[in-house]
């Protein structure tokens, strides 16, 4: 019996089992990647799908009741077994944080008497306190008209009133950000000028009194303009508070809230498939295009997407020339010997330095030394506010560029070494100098390899968080690093970043359970952004590869 399997195994070529081992390893890796991506994708994408709201009727004596009625409505998030009691419990997303004090409620499955899905129930997104789940009772307008919920035009009026509220909100935003912002900037500049003049006066040197007067008058005019605009904003804000919605919670409380507090509403139990799809798409769009609200747990993440994108592009722009030039010298010009070898080893080892160390270096070198010097030289009249002497997107990009230089150097060196000798010799034999050969023949031929290095660098840089936390990332940036205000590129500004956003949502937010869906959605988006940036680079690389195919060499 023992001889037979032995015979069988000698028939098989040696190493066959190792092939199985290799494929098993690959399969395991693929499985892990697919599972992780699938989880993130599914959790991230279902955030936007409207979910049915259940109205749960509890037993009379249940400790879970929230009001005088024994009903609660909410989205059933999870059914799980309580670790302590061993009983089944439901996690209910009840919303109405202002009324209940929490977004979630755990109820014992045993306490549940019945579950229904009433069509009339409304889910409303609010500016504060998260969503609210309620039955509308009536709308009371400023002029005193009251529309009860059973009036035929109630939903239409509600819809249009919310639309008006949104328009007004946008108007207020524009007024404050753009018009008042412009005045503030001017005031700021004039104040700096005024201060500089006054300082010189105090030092005893002669100044143009008329200039000082002009500044003061200008300031007064701006102040008047400001009053007008601020008045307009106040009026609009007051208008937001004028119309009031009365509603009743499932648990019995009667509440009323100004319409200005609402962002939108939907009735998930009444929605057909098409309504759901359009809600889904709309929700995704607002997630991508809007600014965050409520400690980032609501609203969109546009500033973070934009910040990540700009930072990655800046980083690539900085790391490419730097890394490529260094690699060219190292490979083409430097005399290969122990010194160059040790430089190469050092560069390779830099890739293994923990990224937080780069962050600390960036803070010390870029922010304090370089940024401080820039402020001293160009913005000395603004001190003590230091535009460049604090973290900003430029310093963050440069720090990451420094961190990813080894990747680019190594990839470029390899690409340069792979250019066939025949190509160089042909060029030299035509009377080209070494530099001309590198520039016209070697670099184009190695461009695909260099881009591979850049792709790796981008993938590493875009996903990095630790060093950014100390060189310029913030949880909420008031303005974008690139906008329509002269000089358009504000690279000294702090910025938001998807990676940091994930950390902030997941671990720093007041209600991490409520922020959970956003964490998944943001993670999904970060991965998507990295994939898109990489795909872009891959497409360029393939194009170059086709163009400079070196098959003939």
């Amino acid at each position, binding site marked *: 019996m023992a001889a037979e399997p032995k015979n069988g195994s000698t028939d098989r070529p040696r190493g066959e089992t190792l092939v199985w081992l290799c494929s098993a390893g690959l399969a395991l890796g693929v499985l892990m990647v697919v599972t992780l991506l699938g989880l993130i994708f599914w959790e991230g994408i279902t955030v936007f799908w409207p979910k049915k709201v259940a109205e749960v009727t509890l037993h009379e004596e249940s400790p879970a009741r929230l009001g005088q009625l024994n009903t609660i409505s909410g989205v059933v998030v999870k059914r799980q077994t309580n670790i302590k009691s061993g009983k089944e419990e439901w996690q209910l997303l009840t919303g109405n944080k202002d009324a209940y004090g929490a977004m979630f409620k755990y109820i014992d499955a045993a306490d549940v008497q019945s579950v229904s899905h009433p069509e009339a129930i409304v889910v409303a997104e609010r500016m504060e306190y998260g969503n609210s789940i309620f039955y509308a009772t009536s709308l009371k307008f400023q002029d005193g008209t009251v529309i009860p919920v059973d009036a035929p035009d109630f939903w239409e009026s509600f819809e249009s009133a919310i639309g008006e509220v949104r328009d007004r909100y946008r108007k207020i935003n524009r007024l404050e950000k753009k018009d008042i912002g412009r005045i503030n900037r001017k005031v700021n500049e004039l104040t700096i000028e005024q201060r500089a003049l006054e300082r010189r006066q105090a030092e005893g040197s002669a100044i143009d009194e008329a200039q000082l007067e002009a500044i003061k008058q200008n300031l007064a005019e701006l102040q008047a303009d400001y009053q007008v605009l601020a008045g307009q904003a106040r009026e609009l804000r007051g208008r937001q508070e004028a119309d009031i919605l009365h509603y009743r919670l499932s648990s019995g409380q009667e509440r009323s809230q100004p319409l200005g507090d609402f962002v939108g509403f939907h009735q998930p139990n009444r929605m057909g498939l098409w309504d759901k799809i359009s809600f889904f798409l709309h929700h995704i769009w607002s997630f991508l295009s809007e600014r965050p609200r409520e400690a980032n747990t609501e609203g969109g993440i546009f500033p973070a997407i934009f910040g990540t994108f700009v930072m990655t592009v800046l980083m690539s722009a900085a790391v490419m020339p730097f890394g490529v030039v260094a690699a060219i010298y190292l490979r083409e010009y430097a005399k290969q010997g122990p010194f160059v070898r040790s430089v190469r080893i050092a560069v390779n080892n830099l890739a293994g330095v923990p990224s937080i160390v780069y962050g600390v270096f960036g803070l010390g070198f870029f922010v304090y030394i370089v940024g401080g010097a820039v402020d001293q030289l160009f913005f000395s009249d603004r001190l003590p506010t230091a535009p460049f002497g604090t973290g900003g997107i430029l310093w963050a990009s440069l720090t990451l560029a420094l961190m990813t230089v080894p990747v680019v150097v190594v990839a470029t060196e390899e690409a340069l070494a792979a250019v066939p000798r025949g190509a160089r010799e042909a*060029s030299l*034999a*035509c*009377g080209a100098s070494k530099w001309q050969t590198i520039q016209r023949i070697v670099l184009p031929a190695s461009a695909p390899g260099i881009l591979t290095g850049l792709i790796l660098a981008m993938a590493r840089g875009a996903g990095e968080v630790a060093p950014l936390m100390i060189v310029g990332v913030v949880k909420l940036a008031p303005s974008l690093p690139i906008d329509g205000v002269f000089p358009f590129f504000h690279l000294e500004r702090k910025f938001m970043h998807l990676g940091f956003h994930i950390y902030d949502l997941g671990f720093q937010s007041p209600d991490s359970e409520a922020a959970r869906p956003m964490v998944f959605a943001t993670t999904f988006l970060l991965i998507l952004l990295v994939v898109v940036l990489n795909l872009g680079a891959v497409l360029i690389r393939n194009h170059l590869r086709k163009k400079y195919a070196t098959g*003939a*060499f």
Partner: protein
Amino acid sequence: MNTEESTATSDPNLDPPCDPEDALIEIKDFNFFYGTAQALYDLNFDIPEKKVTAFIGPSGCGKSTLLRSINRMNDLIDGAHHQGDIIINGHSVFDPLTEVISLRKRIGMVFQKSNPFPKSIYENVIYGLRVSGRNKKGELDQVVMESLKGAALWDEVKDRLHESALGLSGGQMQRLCIARAIANKPEVILMDEPCSALDPIATGKIEELIHELKNQFTIVIVTHNMQQAARVSDNTAFFYLGKLIEYSTTENIFFNPKQAQTEAYITGRFG
């Protein structure tokens, strides 16, 4: 074959195929080393102007090394150094005042493996002009036409000058490389086994071309193929183990070799 005998009797200038007045390239006491390994030993001979001179010999005999010394391509190799001199038109190739770039413009080279650049046919031909900063459209067009005609390629590619050179056949690519070399209007064209990767028909075309080119250029060709040397060259130098064994007119080498080693090689007894 006895080495003693061969060194004793090998005096290449016994039967010089080249009058000193006609000499374009003079090789004087030339020794060449890769690091510590000597590749060429005391070479002394002249190469005449507007003739085809073939270097033959078994692999590793140093014929390519000598060829690449003429336009200083060996500069690229770490640790390579030489003794003696190579003089072209009265100027030493190794003179510190000789600019290697202008030297290589005066000495074109065609390699064993055709190596067109991944550019258009047009750009390939004028590469040498581009790197010297000559960019006038009229002049470039003229040079492209002349060079491609000179390399007998014009009729085949005149309608697709701006397509990639990598779309050409092997023989066409090699002729393109010749066109590229003659676009610089060099005095000498060095050919390092230009046909070894080509089929017989393409080889025949190149050989015809070499016949044409020798009216204008001095050609030095390294070849493994003795029939080829017999067909295309006026003079032939036979190398063995880094030494010049015999240098004479091609006729003499093939039909009346003075050295026993030469005879052995060309009759196929070794090498």
